[in-house]
């Protein structure tokens, strides 16, 4: 299997982060995006031999709110993700070059359309498919995940599979993530790229910019 990347991890503590890091390294991950409150968390992943990017998720109810938050966040974090709750915010997040990841909530799944895909390609960002929604088992969230993943594949938008794991029990092996996306209707090659090439290209871009 090629080098896999998980762009969304949310460990609750440094000890949890250590156990996650060991498991991720064994599963073949090479880089991770971590949202953390505690400072020791990043170190736990680095010590396991993983490349770490500090991530923040900005919730934006409007484009103007998103602009202010992104400007602040870009200076402090390696990865900036925007969770838009409004059509304008979604479009802004897709086209702005400072935004790396668009994290559509279930209610906004249908905004993953041709225009959004085009703007994502222009802005150099990607849309994430949160596999934690599969673990939750709620039909509405699973349906939203299916819609986002299929539409991103159909409209040729850069798609990345993320676990958003808080504990090691919520992690996904790259093969399993790929199979889950394929089961949701994403073509096999796109599913493979969503676990490896697409997130890896973002990591390389951000590491070069450090």
């Amino acid at each position, binding site marked *: 299997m090629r080098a896999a990347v998980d762009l969304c991890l949310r460990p609750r503590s440094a000890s949890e982060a250590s156990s996650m890091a060991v498991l991720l390294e064994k599963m073949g991950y090479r880089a991770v995006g971590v949202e953390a409150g505690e400072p020791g968390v990043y170190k736990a992943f680095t010590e396991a031999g993983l490349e770490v990017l500090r991530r923040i998720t900005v919730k934006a109810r409007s484009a103007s709110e998103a602009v202010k938050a992104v400007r602040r966040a870009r200076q402090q974090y390696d990865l900036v993700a925007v969770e838009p709750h409004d059509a304008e915010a979604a479009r802004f997040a897709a086209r702005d070059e400072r935004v790396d990841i668009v994290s559509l909530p279930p209610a906004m799944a249908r905004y993953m359309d041709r225009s959004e895909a085009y703007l994502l390609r222009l802005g150099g960002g990607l849309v994430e498919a949160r596999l934690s929604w599969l673990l939750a088992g709620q039909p509405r969230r699973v349906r939203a995940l299916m819609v986002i993943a299929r539409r991103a594949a159909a409209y040729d938008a850069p798609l990345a599979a993320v676990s958003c794991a808080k504990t090691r029990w919520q992690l996904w092996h790259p*093969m*399993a993530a790929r*199979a*889950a996306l*394929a*089961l949701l209707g994403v073509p096999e090659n796109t599913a493979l790229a969503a676990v490896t090439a697409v997130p890896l290209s973002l990591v390389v871009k951000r590491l070069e910019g450090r």
Partner: protein
Amino acid sequence: MRDDSVVWTALLLVSMAAATIAVLAWRKTMECQRELDAARRIAGHAARYVALVRRALETVLVYARDEEELRRIAAKRRKRYVAFRIVYEGEPPAPQALEKAIIETAKSLAGTIGVSEAGMSLAYYNPERAAGVLRVNHTHKNLAIAALALTRSIDGRRVLIIPLRTSGTIRRAKKTIQEEL
């Protein structure tokens, strides 16, 4: 008197001409009507032939689809063996509980019929090493791997099942487990 006879003669000639024209026009109309009727008859025959050909084609298509379906059912189902290992808390899970949990997860994904078509079963399991091999039909490999990944609890205890490799033979899958551990 001479003027009257000229007028009458002229009138007679005009009426004869008009009558001739009327007869000719009527004859032409009748010819056109006959041609129209012939054209309608030919069109009717053609429509009936087209309907016959269409019914024949539909029948052929139905048979072809049935043939394809029967061929698919009769085709040999190649098996795939998915090697996996388990990260668990407490005791390693028992094989029956493990198989049951995986199949229940697969049912929640694909339903009872989907699971029946997949032909999933636990081919090998080593409780000491908490590693095993799942057998599945080749057409449902992704379902098996996703079911393994989504099984997060067995008998109330948390687990994480990590798929290692997919192989065409159980021997190769077991070898993968040996190498991994």
